[in-house]
């Protein structure tokens, strides 16, 4: 066996071994009455933008893609989802006072306008999450509502 074949086998074994280690990939229980849509009653256009581009990381309704089952990518994705939910969770909007909700929407507006959100890597995989200026305007308008 050439060293190349040996290396290939070794790498494959390592990669297979890695698959035994999988992160927690679950959608926690949530109360439908507590969601952004139930509490803030957003315009359908706004709800649609957020669902399309943000809900995978900022809600309890994550659609886990097939590659989220492949380590070590699974770890990176699970980590983004956990962190994303910790910063902003549209499924738990009833936990926020009106004032805190306003802060979160203002930040969302700023992040989107600055091109920081959704995360660049996510946009690369999800063409539907590449937001137009009009999409961003929906978020920014909501953040200015009284």
């Amino acid at each position, binding site marked *: 066996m050439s060293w190349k074949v040996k290396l290939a086998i070794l790498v494959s074994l390592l990669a297979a071994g890695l698959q035994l280690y999988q992160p927690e990939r679950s959608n926690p229980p949530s109360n439908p009455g507590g969601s952004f849509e139930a509490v803030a009653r957003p315009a359908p256009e706004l709800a649609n933008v957020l669902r399309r581009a943000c809900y995978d990381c900022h809600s309890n309704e994550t659609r886990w893609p097939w590659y989220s089952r492949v380590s070590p990518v699974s770890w990176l994705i699970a980590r983004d989802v956990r962190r994303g939910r910790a910063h902003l969770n549209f499924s738990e909007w009833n936990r926020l006072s009106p*004032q805190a909700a306003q*802060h979160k929407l203002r930040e969302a507006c700023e992040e989107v306008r600055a091109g920081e959100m959704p995360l660049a890597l996510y946009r690369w995989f999800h063409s539907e999450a590449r937001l137009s200026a009009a999409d961003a305007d929906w978020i920014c308008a909501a953040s200015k509502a009284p």
Partner: protein
Amino acid sequence: MRHALIAIALGILAFGTGCQRKPSDVVDPAKLKVFEPLPEVVAASYGTPSEELIALGRMLYYDPRLSKSQQISCNTCHDLNKYGVDNEPTSEGHKGQKGDRNSPTVYNAAAQFAQFWDGRAPDVEEQAKGPVMNPVEMAMPSDKLVIAVLKSIPEYVDAFRRAFPKDKDPVNLDNMARAIGAFERRLLTPARWDKFLKGDAQALTSAEKAGLNVFLEAGCQTCHLGALLGGTMFQKLGLMKPYPDQSDPGRYRVTKNEADRMVFKVPMLRNVEKTAPYFHNGKVATLEQAVQEMADYQLGKTLSRKETEAIITFLKSLTGEIPFDYIKQPELPKSTARTPKPDLSD
């Protein structure tokens, strides 16, 4: 597979950029937008409280006769000379019984969006009805007894009349709570931090500003924001990994909703230097431990000793001034022969 490989490479890159830089003491003003200075008073839905109402509230706050044993007042557990706390993990109420939660401070509390660790009271007025009849706190068996005590003291009856001139029968539980609430609405402790937020960059030392940057970099303001650096939302304790002490389910007790298990009100950080011990169970003795557990359980980050110290240096700049004139204990009206006697039974 190409996608996955690129994902790995980019992921590693992302990890790299997450690494530390030396904290600077230049604070980006855009990052301060999530905070606000303390208001001068916390507005009440019924209008501006009168001086008479506040004076009555102050007396009631200090009066142990609102308890069954006539030994425990609000001030026993929320000592206004000690930043509104008793510095005990959990407080001793009627006959030395202990509740299961730590006493939060009453300073600035009125400005929160909800009261209690689980938010079960919407405001300080509603809150003030709780402790008087809580069996392990002031343990009054009924509101009738509370009213009987107050009505037996002519000076109180007069004070209620002055505070509620339009009411025919002003001595009642709702008015008692409104008076205490009115007093609490001005228990505010402005700090150097407020001067800083209003534009005086020199109001914080360079070390405090560097600490603020570490606080912001870690992401603490995700939850600890607004005028109080807290008191604006509920959050799960143990967001990134389960919190070990699961004995108190938090807001679940109020809503019975599975999603609210281990969800607590995010507490204020003003005066946090002075309000040890910490967390709802009072089991966290030091600010070091509180900050490190926060980073660990809420943000999935491990802070170095240096970073922890820097954050604590910043947190200390939130310690405000106690309004000593405002909280001065008034002379309490004398009991009469008609006043019910203290009851030391369980």
